[in-house]
């Protein structure tokens, strides 16, 4: 008797599966190459000459059966995604296959496979995902247990030669209702044809009882959904069904043979006509005729003696062939299909995540990426801060600036080029945002051309409504972002953003430059109502005993533009961004107290630390000394920008309050009590001067 040849599964991998694999590799698996449970599915062959493929799509990672079309049989699989090409090559394929075959055998022995036939369809998918070049190498294995029963099978005969048209329609209806009760097509099932010719379809687990009650093998059949369309051969699922006969005493010992149906009946479809867009009815699609069938029946001859309970599993085969019909992996190259923006985004993600996998597992890239940053000032500092934020994967960056790009700007301000200067009317904020989008199309870069109203810069009646609008727009911007960077070039222009950040409890970071010195400072977050008020950190204005005033008056040319050593802005901007990222990793985030580098471990507490390092309050640096020093300054209760008095007055009177601050140079000092303090100090000084002269006339001041 010629031995039966089985048509292997044709595996069909969707691009969606590979991109989902890439995504999960980045977000979940990291460097882990532990096996992952996936699922695949196939439909029976039907009418076509083409084998029905075994599909693994984007939904393969979902558990259960939801999302799989109901005509498809679901099979459980094991995904093994290795980290290197060498791992892929060197992995012991035989052992991997044998391991899964062992599980299949155990499920057969325990009887589990009778209840859940799909367990006999377990498959393996070995992959290597080269995420940097979007090339995927994959290799399927469909483990099949090799049993002698295959040698005792007769060549397939057409189902039509065994069943009448009526019986075949009953078979289709029985299969449809079994599918309906289970919610999907069963991979394996049983068929009973009683002596009167009545046909019944039931689950695989019904076979043993049906067989026991039958008089001849013609009355109880085993059946499987066959992806193979060939009239001369059965498909791969039959192999493990035959192995099941070795594992379990399903077929009565005395039976000379058993019939197995390779089910390939067409779908019943429907009789109703299709609609047509322009109202023409089309003839209905031909309803599947009873004779239109590719199903075959295979008769397998005995003996049917189940192996002993502890019998080892038979040898297994099943690694798939590649396109040249050799056992080997296949490759899918998606680099051309992936659109460049998606490529850029995925590559940026990968670089940042590599940092986490290789160096710092605590790194929270998602938290950083999700932080929206408002950059007040799109000059040298704004450009440098933005680029550093991009580097960290920050996706939402908005610039606020009222200026236009000037010819002197591009050499220092890294987001601008000569082209931006031509015409002299390109707004800086817009140009900077456009540059960010050119650098990385996935960034959400925004721009607002807002003049920042400043104390000591009086507002005329004509300007009043514009200034009020600008202040309100700036407030909306502060509200809409998580972190506010203060990057303007005068002291007084930082006042309103400082106040707004305090009023809305946003983290604010100031960067300020001298000629060769820098300060980077995070503003203390106003305490939450419940928290103890004690140790809040100060803001940029807290160390001052004078209110912000117009510093632009009586300046010479060299004083009117910020003159600093060109490297300074980059150093300072980078420090500011790194401070922000470190803070985002601190359990208390913006509310964290300053922990100075070199601080006593015990003093700062074990629990409140950022894995990235210290979270100083201010960093002061000097280029001549090539040194930075961390300092801490507490909030000042008479601060003109962040004290409760000012914040409350702003909350209460809004724009009216701001107008007073802009128009009167002494308003803020009067409000906060600084004026009074000055008077007291003067008095004290006079008093002490008096005392000093009374002693020995030494002058320590």
């Amino acid at each position, binding site marked *: 008797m010629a031995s039966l040849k089985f048509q292997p599964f044709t595996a069909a991998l969707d691009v969606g599966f590979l991109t989902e694999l890439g995504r999960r590799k980045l977000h979940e698996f990291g460097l882990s190459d532990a096996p992952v449970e996936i699922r695949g599915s196939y439909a029976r062959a039907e009418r076509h000459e083409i084998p029905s493929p075994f599909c693994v799509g984007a939904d393969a990672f979902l558990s259960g059966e939801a999302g799989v079309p109901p*005509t498809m049989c679901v099979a459980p699989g094991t995904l093994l995604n290795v980290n290197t090409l060498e791992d892929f090559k060197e992995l012991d394929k035989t052992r991997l296959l044998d391991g899964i075959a062992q599980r299949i055998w155990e499920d057969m022995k325990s009887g589990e496979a009778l209840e859940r036939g799909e367990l006999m369809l377990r498959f393996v998918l070995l992959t290597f995902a080269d995420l940097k070049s979007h090339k995927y190498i994959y290799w399927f294995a469909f483990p099949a247990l090799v049993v002698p029963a295959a040698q005792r099978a007769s060549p397939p005969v057409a189902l039509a030669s065994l069943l009448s048209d009526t019986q075949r329609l009953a078979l289709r209806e029985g299969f449809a209702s079994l599918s309906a009760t289970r919610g999907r097509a069963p991979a394996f099932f049983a068929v009973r044809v009683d002596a009167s010719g009545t046909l019944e379809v039931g689950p695989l687990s019904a076979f043993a009882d049906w067989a026991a009650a039958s008089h001849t093998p013609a009355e109880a059949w085993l059946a499987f959904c066959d992806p193979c369309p060939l009239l001369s051969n059965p498909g791969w699922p039959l192999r493990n069904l035959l192995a099941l006969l070795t594992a379990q005493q399903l077929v009565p010992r005395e039976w000379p043979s058993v019939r197995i149906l390779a089910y390939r009946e067409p779908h019943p479809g429907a009789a109703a*006509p299709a609609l047509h867009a322009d109202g023409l009815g089309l003839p209905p699609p031909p309803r599947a005729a009873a004779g239109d069938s590719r199903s075959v029946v295979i008769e397998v001859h005995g003996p049917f003696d189940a192996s002993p309970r502890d019998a080892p599993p038979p040898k297994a085969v099943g690694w798939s*062939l590649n*396109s040249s019909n050799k056992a080997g992996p296949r490759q899918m190259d998606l680099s051309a299909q992936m659109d460049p923006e998606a490529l850029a985004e995925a590559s940026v993600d990968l670089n940042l995540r590599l940092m986490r996998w290789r160096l710092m597992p605590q790194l929270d890239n998602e938290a950083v990426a999700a932080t929206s940053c408002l950059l007040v000032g799109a000059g040298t500092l704004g450009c440098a801060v933005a680029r550093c934020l991009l580097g960290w994967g920050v996706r939402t960056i908005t610039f606020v600036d009222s200026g236009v790009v000037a010819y002197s700007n591009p050499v220092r301000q890294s987001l601008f080029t000569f082209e931006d200067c031509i015409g002299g009317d390109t707004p800086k904020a817009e140009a900077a945002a456009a540059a960010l989008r050119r650098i990385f199309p996935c960034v959400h870069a925004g721009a607002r051309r807002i003049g920042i109203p400043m104390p000591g810069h009086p507002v005329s009646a004509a300007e009043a409504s514009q200034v009020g609008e600008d202040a309100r727009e700036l407030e909306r911007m502060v509200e809409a972002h998580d972190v506010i960077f203060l990057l303007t070039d005068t002291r007084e222009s930082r006042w309103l953003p400082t106040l707004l950040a305090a009023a809305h409890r946003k983290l604010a970071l100031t960067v300020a430059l001298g000629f060769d010195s820098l300060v980077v400072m995070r503003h203390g977050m106003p305490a939450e109502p419940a928290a103890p008020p004690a140790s809040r950190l100060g803001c940029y204005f807290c160390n001052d005993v004078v209110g912000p005033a117009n510093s632009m008056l009586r300046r010479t040319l060299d004083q009117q533009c910020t003159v600093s050593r060109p490297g300074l802005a980059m150093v300072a901007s980078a420090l500011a961004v790194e401070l922000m990222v470190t803070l985002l990793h601190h359990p208390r985030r913006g509310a964290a107290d300053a922990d100075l580098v070199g601080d006593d471990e015990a003093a700062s507490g074990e629990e409140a630390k950022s894995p990235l390092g210290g979270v100083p309050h201010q960093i002061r640096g000097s280029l001549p000394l090539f040194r930075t020093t961390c300092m801490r300054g507490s909030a000042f209760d008479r601060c003109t920008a962040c004290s409760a008095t000012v914040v409350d007055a702003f909350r209460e009177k809004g724009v009216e309050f701001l107008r007073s601050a802009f128009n009167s140079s002494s308003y803020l000092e009067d409000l906060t009590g600084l004026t009074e303090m000055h008077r007291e100090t003067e008095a004290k000084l006079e008093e002490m001067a008096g005392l000093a002269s009374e002693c020995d006339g030494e002058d320590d001041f």
Partner: protein
Amino acid sequence: MAHLSPVAFAQLGRAFAQRSAAHAVSWGWVEGESTGPFSTPSVGYLRSSPVLVEEATPHEASHEVPTDGGDDDTLVGGASGARLELHIVYGATFGVPLLLVQGYSSAGELWTVSEVRSHLMAASKEGGAPIAADSVSQIEHPALGVPFASLHPCRTAEWMGAILQRESGDAPQQLDYLSAWWSVLAQSVGQRVAPADARAWMLSA
């Protein structure tokens, strides 16, 4: 004009998948998921069982004996075909369902958009409702983020409006929009699909 809300699309999509079991092309409903704390959950989509098609340039199957992996009982060689994967997603811009198509060669390689286009033009002609070349373009799958060919939906709301009105008179809300839509669109991918019960897309109110 007849538009569909995302919520209605999801409801109809689930029911559509459930009813598709009797058809050669059956559908699975994949639930939408939330991709992050700041994004709204995606709508979910329908995916078809594979649609097998004759390959334009058949892959030359060799008949070599496998070196390993199989055994004497493994059949080697034989015909294999190309396949289409169909997805139905919610087109937010037009407020209508969107048919997305991916084609794969028998060797498992993804078809280009122009390969999909020429296939659809031929298949739709055969199906009796030829489509124009410019109605097929490449878009990104809203849930999967991978490129698919799409049939342009710009007139969908218009002809759906006409169908719904004709078929249901003055109670268009009782019609299953999605089934009616698919019974028209199926012809563009060479499928002759009729709803399981002609009035199944009349929702039993």
